């Protein structure tokens, strides 16, 4: 039981760290602002979740675990709001973005235009 | 795991502090070289978060929180407000300001020299840990009945002081809002532009 918990803790915290770093790499690799914000959202969701859940497993049930879930909840509520506000500000200021396409017309035809890598 | 934790604490704490300090120094030099003031304001926010992290690592949790609230929160907003009134790019200096660099370097060296006289970080025999601090730490809970020492110091031992401080800050904020905020909003409405 203790061993299983230890393994779960390691898996969560190491996994969370790896996802954070992947998000950071994405932040550097992606070609423009909009694509970078996708990379940033990885660190805010799975990276933060795994690390905080790992810490909660260490703490065991109790006040500390509750606080960890509060932190997680706050991140989950605030990070998309902040990301949306930022992206919207960028878009409305006219930062270079792809053209708007009609979703209803594209449905089922997405893979036809352009392969991976272009755009 | 317990043994690991003690070892992790003894090595990892200072390492993290050093890493954070290296980040801060690099950031400071980068900010100094920047011409775009908006970017500088953003990086100042990151600088505050870094120093808050460093303060947390040095156990000054309450100072760290003040740093984050004031440094990363309020002052970023204030700097941006000031930027709204001026241009957001610093003009290039005409000549190389050698004297300025000399003065800054000398001041920095003097400050670093001053720290040599201070007691070592975390020294239990330092004057600050010998005088009233133990009294607050050990007796405040029985005397005041509030578990958080900082709260009982702020709100009880020096309650009048805090009261005065709060009044001054509140009055200043109200005054500033009345003098500045209303004016800016009215001007903006009249011109109707985002200039």
């Amino acid at each position: 039981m203790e061993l299983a918990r230890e393994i779960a803790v390691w898996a969560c915290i190491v996994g969370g760290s790896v996802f954070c770093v992947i998000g950071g790499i994405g932040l550097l690799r992606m070609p423009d602002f909009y694509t970078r914000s996708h990379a940033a959202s990885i660190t805010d969701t799975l990276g933060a979740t795994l690390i905080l859940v790992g810490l909660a497993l260490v703490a065991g049930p109790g006040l500390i675990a509750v606080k960890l879930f509060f932190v997680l909840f706050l991140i989950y509520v605030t990070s998309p709001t902040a990301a949306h506000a930022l992206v919207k500000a960028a878009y409305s200021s006219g930062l270079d973005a792809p053209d708007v396409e009609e979703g209803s017309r594209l449905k089922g035809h997405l893979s036809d235009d352009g392969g991976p890598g272009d755009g | 795991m317990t043994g690991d934790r003690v070892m992790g604490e003894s090595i990892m704490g200072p390492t993290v502090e050093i890493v954070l300090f290296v980040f801060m120094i690099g950031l400071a030099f980068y900010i100094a070289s920047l011409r775009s003031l908006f970017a500088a304001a953003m990086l100042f926010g990151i600088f505050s978060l870094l120093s808050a992290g460093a303060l947390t690592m040095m156990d000054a949790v309450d100072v760290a929180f003040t740093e984050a609230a004031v440094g990363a929160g309020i002052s970023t907003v204030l700097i941006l407000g000031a930027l709204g009134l001026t241009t957001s790019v610093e003009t290039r200096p005409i000549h190389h300001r050698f004297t300025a660099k000399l003065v800054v370097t000398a001041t920095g060296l003097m400050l670093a020299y001053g720290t040599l006289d201070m007691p070592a970080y975390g020294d239990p025999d330092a004057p600050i840990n010998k005088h009233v601090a133990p009294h607050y730490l050990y007796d405040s809970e029985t005397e005041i009945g509030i578990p958080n020492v900082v709260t009982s110091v702020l709100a009880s031992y020096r309650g009048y002081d805090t009261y005065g401080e709060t009044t001054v800050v509140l009055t200043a904020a109200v005054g500033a809002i009345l003098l500045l905020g209303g004016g800016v909003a009215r001007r903006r409405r009249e011109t109707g532009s985002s200039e």
Partner: protein
Amino acid sequence: MNVFVVGMIGVLTTMLLALTRAFMGPTVFDRVLAANMFGTKTVLLIAVSGFLTGRPEWLDLALLYALMNFIGMIALLRFSKFQNLASDEQAK
């Protein structure tokens, strides 16, 4: 090797990467994005370091940081007029 040390290294590495993006820009939005990500990483750093040094009470601080970060971010975006700033930066 302590598991918290691993977490700490991960978070610090991510901070370094975000810092690099904040240095590189090129637009203001990239810098704001990096600053915002940096804020979340500070929350994680404090949470992990609290466990590392055996004092999980620091979580209160992490909680407040998460709130402050959000408020600061929204205040910033409401406050700044991005049109001017973006073009200024491009002129640089």
